[in-house]
């Protein structure tokens, strides 16, 4: 018996279906002209926001429910980043026809592995009476158990019945029980209940006329935020017992979840999103100029930074600001050779895990995640570095500041000295922008910080000269001058916009949307407490999840309407 299977077995389903029967006169949300009609028509429940699972969530859920050996056999359509996060864009996207073909293909690939001979005894809790005939009872048991984990709630009778019928149809057509079951499971995996996270509002018994987020929606918010996955069985059980309606019950679950190793998955998912690490999946460099850079390096670079972050922020419960100055990281032998540092092998001979801790010496000019390959190579051109792209990325991802696009109708020949087209260093090339008022506005925001990282070439390799000229890495950030990348790291560490930005991002990520103006006082409070508590990220996550704001239920558009009215008055 594997740990994965134990998710099904020890926890018996108890009378959970009562949750779905909660009746109330809830108006359907929306501000369209149909509202009056809809409001007159009481419905028992209503969703407030619906988010498509991100590709990372999809992968994590499949691995959690069926085990890490199941391969997906497909790919996801590109995601939409809004206000710096996919998690916010997930509330705006749908599924394109070719994206649906892929979901369908993945669903069938996953389902056929679940029922194959290598997995069926572990993952299917019963055996059919005959492998060539339908067995409704066995399918029903499987559908109930798996459905609860995939749909993040208990299935209604008619839902379960539909998937049982689907399996029966397919088994009769094909004469094979397991193929029929796998097609039915495939249908669950292509269903909107799996691919989209619906949030459901119900009447709030404590406040007549008000609504609250239902217990299952609360469980999903917690687990996707803290673990980047579906609720596990204890969390579902807590939801079904009504624990997630009480402060004490929520605190208990949050405590358990923060102590779990899965918190690492949640933190990794958040930083992958915030740091645009999806870009590393498709990052390519010119192989003539950077022959050592390849897809494996890009993937290892991502892993290096995520390990650095998890170690500093989760395992050591360290100060968030120190990620810009830390000398501690994790390397493989391959990465060490790219960074040109000696890494004494201390993993057991032949061990599949080749990662080991490494600390850059005090004298080494490198520190902080902004000097790791995942940052400097990601924000570069294919054949050279880019102080402008790096400066823009620092401003936008670490400081939450928006750098405007270049203006239209600008004659760039003004910034080119045509009599001397070859400038030796990036600094001299960019100097021309600074002399042109139309360009200077934005380049002043990006270049002085980006130039501090010029010791890293477009693939993240170390360089001290460009075209024979020694590289000058001096610069400044918001009035703080520095000599080099280490100085930039110090300036970032001490810049108040850095922790403020993190709280903005984490709170938007937790809510899955951009916080409304009404939530501004709460966000300010989070920032104050983050500072007071020593900038410890899990403590911030704890405060968010145990705040009433985290589960606050509102109709879409309600806050905007209130804000608009307040504006009129």
């Amino acid at each position, binding site marked *: 018996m594997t740990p994965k299977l134990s998710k099904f077995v020890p926890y018996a389903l108890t009378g959970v279906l009562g949750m779905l029967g909660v009746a109330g006169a809830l108006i359907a949300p929306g501000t369209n002209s149909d509202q009056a009609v809809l409001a007159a028509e009481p419905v028992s429940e209503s969703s407030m926001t619906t988010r498509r699972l991100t590709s990372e969530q999809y992968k994590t859920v499949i691995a959690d429910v069926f085990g890490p050996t199941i391969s997906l056999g497909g790919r996801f359509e590109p995601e939409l980043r809004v206000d710096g996060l996919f998690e916010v864009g997930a509330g705006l996207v749908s599924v*394109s*026809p070719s994206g649906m073909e892929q979901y369908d293909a993945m669903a069938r690939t996953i389902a056929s592995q679940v029922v194959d001979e290598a997995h069926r005894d572990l993952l299917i809790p019963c055996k059919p009476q005959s492998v060539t005939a339908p067995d409704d009872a066995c399918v029903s048991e499987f559908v109930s158990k798996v459905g609860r984990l995939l749909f993040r709630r208990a299935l209604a009778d008619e839902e379960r019945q539909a998937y049982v019928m689907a399996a029966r149809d397919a088994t009769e057509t094909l004469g094979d029980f397991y193929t029929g079951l796998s097609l039915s499971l495939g249908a669950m995996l292509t269903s909107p209940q799996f691919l989209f996270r*619906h949030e459901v509002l119900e009447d709030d018994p404590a406040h007549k006329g008000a609504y609250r987020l239902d217990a299952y929606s609360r469980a999903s918010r917690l687990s996707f935020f803290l673990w980047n996955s579906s609720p596990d069985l204890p969390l579902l059980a807590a939801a079904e017992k009504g624990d997630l309606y009480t402060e004490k019950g929520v605190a208990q679950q949050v405590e358990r979840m923060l102590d779990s190793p899965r918190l690492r998955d949640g933190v990794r998912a958040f930083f992958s999103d915030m740091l645009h690490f999806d870009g590393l999946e498709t990052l390519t460099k010119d192989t003539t100029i950077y022959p050592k850079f390849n897809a494996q390096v890009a993937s290892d670079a991502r892993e290096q930074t995520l390990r650095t972050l998890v170690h500093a922020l989760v395992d050591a419960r360290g100060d968030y600001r120190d990620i810009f100055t830390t000398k501690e990281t994790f390397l493989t032998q391959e990465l060490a050779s790219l960074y040109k540092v000696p890494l004494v092998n201390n993993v057991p001979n032949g061990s599949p895990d080749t990662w080991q801790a490494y600390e850059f010496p005090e004298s080494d000019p490198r520190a902080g995640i902004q000097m790791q390959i995942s940052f400097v190579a990601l924000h570069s051109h294919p054949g*050279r570095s880019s102080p402008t792209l790096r400066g823009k990325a620092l401003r936008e991802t670490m400081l939450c500041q928006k750098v405007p696009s270049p203006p239209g109708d600008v004659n760039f020949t003004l910034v080119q000295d045509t009599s001397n087209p070859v400038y030796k260093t990036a600094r001299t090339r960019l100097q021309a922008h600074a002399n042109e008022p139309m360009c200077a506005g934005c380049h002043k925001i990006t270049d002085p910080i980006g130039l501090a990282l010029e010791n890293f070439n477009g693939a993240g390799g170390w360089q001290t000269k460009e075209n024979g000229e020694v590289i000058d890495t001096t610069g400044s950030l918001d009035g703080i001058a520095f000599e080099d990348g280490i100085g930039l790291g110090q300036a970032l560490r001490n810049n108040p916009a850095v922790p403020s930005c993190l709280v903005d991002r984490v709170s938007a990520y937790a809510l899955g949307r951009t916080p409304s103006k009404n939530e501004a006082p709460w966000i300010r409070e989070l920032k104050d407490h983050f500072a007071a508590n020593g900038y410890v990220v899990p403590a911030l996550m704890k405060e968010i999840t145990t705040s009433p704001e985290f589960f606050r239920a509102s109709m879409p558009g309600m806050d905007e309407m209130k804000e608009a009215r307040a504006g009129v008055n």
Partner: protein
Amino acid sequence: MSNSLTRRSILRGAMGGGAVSVALPFLDCFLNSNGTALAATGGPLPYSLGLWWQGLGLNPGSWEPSTIGKGFELRNELKVLEPFRDKLNLYTGTKYFLDGRPLETHTTGYEIASTGGIPMGNNSGASLDMNVADVIGKNTRFRSLEISLDGSRGSYSTRGGSTKNPSEGSPVALYQRIFGPQFTDPNAAEFTPDPMVMARRSVLSYVTDQRQSVIKQLGASDRERLDRYFTSLREVEHQLDLEMQKPAPLEACTVPGEPAEAKPGSVVMDADANNRLFGALVAHALACGQTRVFSIDVGAAGLRKQGSSLTWHMLTHEEPVDEAIGYQKESTWFMNWANSAFAGFLKELDSIPEGDGTVLDRVLVLWQTDHGDARIHTMDALPVMTVGSAGGRIKTGLHVSAHGDPATRVGLTVQQAMGVPISAWGDRSNETSKTITEVLA
């Protein structure tokens, strides 16, 4: 599509658990006796639309012909299209209007060209290829195909809202999608419906049947998004429906060989090789009735030569104008390459004989770009082209001057030629009702 074919009850009855060979009726297409026309409609071979998105414009003052109407000259960057001169129209002088909105360089122009306006936030209108696909793409396996030459997944094709139709950057993956195991050869002598397809179709309907009950629980914006999800799911069902029926034979349809592993990426050499492969795949897909709408994104911005530290886009901004010749030499090399790639793509369509002509004759390909002069991001004096007549719907061999008019005039005309029932298209200053009547047949 007959609904009765798709009902679970009938499927269950018809299949009875085993594989049987059944002669299901053709859909709505029957070849006539000489194999050139479709008897069911009595009309000619179905016409198709292609979009070619090639960023970074051309050199202003260099490519524009000096005469209008017939007999114009293809100059400099356009010379490479000489073999298609009689099948080509050139439109000069059009503009993208910003109406005071900020210019997202290299993006806003494309947005106007594809959707007729500038999106509000993340919410755009539908793109013109989708409007056309809704009219002509309903009975093909793929309502549309989106392709990129530089391996990227982005596209300018959208049903509206925040969801784009992602591009396919790998010829191998596109081959699998079209001509993989799920392809039914229309000219195969035998047709045996696959019971697995029947079972899948039946099971999927348990999900699609929930459409109404799911949608009615949602707020307005979620409703629209879930409705799009169900529409996409319906497309998958539709593909299965087609796989269960014997397709009408198509004279020009042959199954192409599977491309050897291609290297999707932004190096020009790779993009060039992939362009030929994509061209052949699209030509065969059209000949085999798999789709009637496609888009090709050249992905100009990131394209580069192997070993060069500068991309085409960077060159347009950083390369000095060569005083002796009056333009940027390296950037122009890329323009010439991209136009020759376009010619190469057209050649693939033109190389499959069909009826009295070639596949290209029943296609209309619309060539558009993001800026008139990429070097300084201008939004006027745009080069626009169409190639092919869509089976005689468009007159060809013409240079049309539309000085100062919105570029959406071409988009409007193309949509009307494709049978989209609209009399005006575009938003605010980009809205137009002025069809380019001189090219309509």
